[in-house]
């Protein structure tokens, strides 16, 4: 089956600076695809080239198997990471204005219900809180009943509750059969929403697959984390492979029993110990030696 979007060897350079360096991926219709990576990895640039906002330096972008035509802009919905809108308009008026720019349109009452805009739909959009604004921008991206939805860092800056709330809405959108491509630097977001993830760093895709497959391929067992002061001896003398980051010692192990026995035998204080199952953060850490939000 032809993917709804295929990106082949895409490059975007600004003079000597290569922001996106020959990446390729394909997205099946109805799935949620995530570009995960730290700030500056090239995620937003990739998205904006696909959205037709920026011209590519080289490479092909195929929508439904064809180069993007004028119909492309009509069939996609876009939520920008940073954007401004027409001033002095209410939420409802802005939805009406944007809907009129497209040939097809979602029922606005149903959309407001889905994105939980009812309470503030007659307020000026400049006066919304962070969570309200993100839900409003999501509604704006859905106003034309898009087949392909772009979400650029949709939950950045939101508190955990507002983020969960937004995820629920994105889940509902996904359940309605739309294809979603999103960028994020939150591994929880990618793990929670995406069917497939491409991890980007320095403009390149360094790993790609389902979150489970990536974790399985790049992480072993669990991670034991202890504060540095729990260790009396130099870390090099431990009979375990450890990494020290930000004052904490990370130990990955496939056998938690053996690991704990060895730590006890070395007289390590385990009272502040935490044990984590591996996630995409660990995948990125193992691939690059850095945290996603460093």
């Amino acid at each position, binding site marked *: 089956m032809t993917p709804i979007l295929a990106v082949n060897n895409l490059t975007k350079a600004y003079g000597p600076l290569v922001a996106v360096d020959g990446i390729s991926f394909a997205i099946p219709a109805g799935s949620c695809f995530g570009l995960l990576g730290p700030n500056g990895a090239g995620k937003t640039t990739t998205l904006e080239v696909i959205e037709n906002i920026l011209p590519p330096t080289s490479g092909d972008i195929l929508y439904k198997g064809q180069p993007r035509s004028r119909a492309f802009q009509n069939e996609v919905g876009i939520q920008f990471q940073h954007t401004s809108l027409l001033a*002095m308009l209410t939420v409802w008026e802005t939805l009406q204005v944007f809907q009129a*720019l497209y040939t097809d349109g979602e029922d606005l009452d149903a959309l407001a219900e889905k994105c939980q805009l009812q309470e503030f739909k007659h307020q000026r959009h400049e006066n919304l809180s962070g969570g309200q604004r993100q839900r409003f921008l999501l509604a704006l991206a859905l106003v034309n009943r898009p087949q392909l939805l772009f979400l650029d860092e949709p939950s950045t800056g939101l508190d955990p509750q507002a983020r969960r709330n937004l995820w629920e809405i994105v889940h509902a959108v996904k359940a309605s059969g739309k294809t979603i491509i999103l960028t994020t630097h939150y591994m929880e977001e990618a793990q929670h929403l995406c069917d497939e993830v491409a991890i980007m760093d320095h403009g390149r895709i360094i790993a790609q697959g389902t979150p489970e497959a990536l974790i399985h391929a790049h992480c072993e067992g669990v991670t034991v984390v202890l504060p540095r002061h729990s260790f009396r001896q130099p870390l090099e003398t431990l009979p375990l492979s450890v990494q020290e980051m930000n004052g904490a010692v990370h130990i990955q192990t496939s056998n938690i029993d053996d690991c704990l026995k060895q730590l006890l035998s070395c007289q390590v204080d385990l009272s502040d110990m935490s044990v984590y199952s591996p996630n995409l953060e660990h995948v990125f850490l193992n691939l690059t030696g850095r945290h996603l939000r460093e």
Partner: protein
Amino acid sequence: MRFRRIWVMFKARNWEFFRDRASFGWNFLFPFLLVAGFGILFGGREPTAYKIGVFPAPTGAVAVASLDLPEAFKETRFLQFVGFASQDDALEKLRHHKIDIVIRTGPPPYAYWINDAAPNGHLAEKIFQASLTGGADTALLRKGRITTAEIRYIDWLFPGILAMNMMFSALWGVGYIVVRYRKNGALRRLKATPLTAFEYLSAQMLSRIFLLMFTLVVVWFGCDLVFHFHVEGSLGHIFLLFFLGSLSLTAMGLVLAARGTSEEFTTGTLNFISWPMMFLSEVWFSLEGAPGWVKQVAQAFPLTHLLQGIRRIMNDGAGLVDVWPQIAVLLLMTGIFLSVGAYLFSWDQ
């Protein structure tokens, strides 16, 4: 092109304008205050410089020493002498408040003409009379009056103030707003929709023209209640000229809005264009006696042609046929500005 898209962008821009109450109110208050201030309180001209039309003399600025006028008058400070070939030419300028007094050169008896509606004319007359003290000269003086209907200063000034207000509103309302939207990313958001640059710019232009004409009508009739303007020609023709002027000035605004994301740079560019246009298009004072190159520069401004056409209709009763050169120039400028603006336009650079 879809008219629905133009229509919603037109409506959105109008909502923005009408809801920004401070800016909305200022658009009406500003021209009214200017008319009141300059038209009533000060008579509208700088107080110390007087333009003396002389004939027969070489056209334009003349060498004072060569004029056959009383020596004391020629040596008076703050006088600028402007030459005319004939009496008719000079009186025409007097009627239009472009000069303050007309004097026939040559041996006595001197003859002079003033415009009774112009306060500066009476002051210039006093200066001329004072320079003739000494008996016989005074007796030889002959005072004339312009025979056609006089034009009040307020009737000459008012179209200028309205046109100037229109210029600022057109240039800033389009040029500055579009650059601001480009800088804050709103244009980028619109670029992500099927809206085309042509549709967006058309909506911006139409909205601004609608607002300019709306403001014009309100201010015109509001001021008319107070100042009772004399309109020799057709008010409909005047408004048609204003419409063509708003078209070309708004199109000029589109050229300034075509590129750039710096509001500071755009402010500088707008000032660089609007201030010379204001001073050289005869909004406040006439360019009679100014160097030829200054007059040529003034011809490059749409405001010059707009004002020439409107004053001819308002003050002289000219018809559309009489002002066809101004109409043609305004339409030509609109075409050029639109083409350049559309060619250069960028959503995000």
